């Protein structure tokens, strides 16, 4: 018979109650890494509200299994994996609140042209199916290699590459031609 514990597979379970998560380590993680998690969540969801909700829930889950998180080679990567999987699981809810908060913000006049291009690209990104969008964000925002993305999402590296290629094609196709031309002109 296999012996495992929910919170920490490497640690034999005590007979009874166990604290939910160590005080200092978790608080330190929240203090130092939650902003980065939030920015990743914001890129993924396109909504400040959804990103906050996503990070809050991610941190709660991380706290509940903190010993396993802390024992991971990269706790941040582990927590990001929780967040990405939550995103995909709960996409239906996020889709209802999908909104670009940046649309309501004001920017200096000389930023308009650049922001216009940026906004169209982000709008196009948010039109991608969540699975495909997740792959694109993990690759181009989190700078993760294909194999790592595949492991996190439980898909093959071939599927990752396919999703990336199709995602980029869709992004290009959804941009109006002047923006596409502009992005080609910035080539070194």
């Amino acid at each position, binding site marked *: *018979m*296999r*012996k*495992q*514990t*929910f*919170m920490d*597979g490497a640690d034999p*379970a*005590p*007979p*009874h*109650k*166990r*604290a*939910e998560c160590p005080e200092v380590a*978790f*608080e330190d*993680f*929240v*203090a130092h890494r*939650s*902003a*980065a998690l*939030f*920015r*990743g969540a*914001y*890129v993924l969801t396109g909504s*400040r509200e959804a990103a*906050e909700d996503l*990070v*809050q829930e991610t*941190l*709660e889950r991380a*706290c*509940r*299994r903190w010993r*396993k998180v802390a024992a991971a080679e990269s706790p941040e990567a582990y927590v990001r994996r929780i967040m990405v999987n939550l995103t995909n699981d709960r996409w239906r809810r996020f889709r209802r609140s999908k909104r670009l*908060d*940046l649309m309501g913000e004001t920017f200096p006049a000389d930023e308009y042209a650049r922001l216009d*291009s*940026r906004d169209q*690209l*982000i709008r196009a*990104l948010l039109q991608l199916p969540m699975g495909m969008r997740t792959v*694109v*964000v993990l690759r*181009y*925002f*989190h*700078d993760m290699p294909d194999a790592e993305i595949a492991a996190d999402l439980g898909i093959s590296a071939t599927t990752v590459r396919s999703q990336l290629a199709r995602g*980029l094609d869709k*992004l290009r196709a959804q941009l109006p031609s002047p923006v*596409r031309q502009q*992005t*080609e002109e*910035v*080539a*070194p």
Partner: protein
Amino acid sequence: MIRHSARALHDANLTPFEQNLVDTLNDVANTPDAPQFDAVIIKRRIRRRRSTVTGLVLGAVVIGGGATALALTGTSAGSSPSDASKAGVAASSSPSPSGTPDDAPMAWQDPAAALRDQGGEIWADTGRRTGAAHFPLPAQPHAGTVWTSIECQGSGKVTVTVGPSSYTESCSAGASGTVNADQLPFSTPATHFEVTGDEGVTWGVAVGWSRTAPGH
């Protein structure tokens, strides 16, 4: 505002379009100020769930016959305060002596919800009860993980016994509940579980199953 860039490098292998995408993602990520997440509040919220999740890993014993539908008509010396309570109606609890948020009365959390969070299939849900009761479990058709989630309110203890092992949760009127996950190894598949609550303690127990290992 502290700028965050998960991808600071400019990869020479990127096409201009990809580089533009990278720059755009980093720009957008830094558009809003990140809110402050408070670890203390997060842990408080978890405590308020007052659910105890117990992972029980079963061996690879396959019992013949499929899982039987489980109707919770087990012999019970306890009582069910309200049918409506199964739907998660807020329970009454002792008022807070200090009035601080930590001690504030809590809403009753459905213990089955904690199991669903684990991706489990619900086998049994007792609803809210007091006293002692025992309930049948379906035959375990496959190896996997059996989860037990306990919700309780009131000062005292609740003991859940599944097969040869038992788990005791200390309950209190205030927000002192925890979300735990301890293993109770079973040498033989369980056919029923028993719950015993101290006087004055209201409890709810859900038992579920998932194919995946705990933590996944």
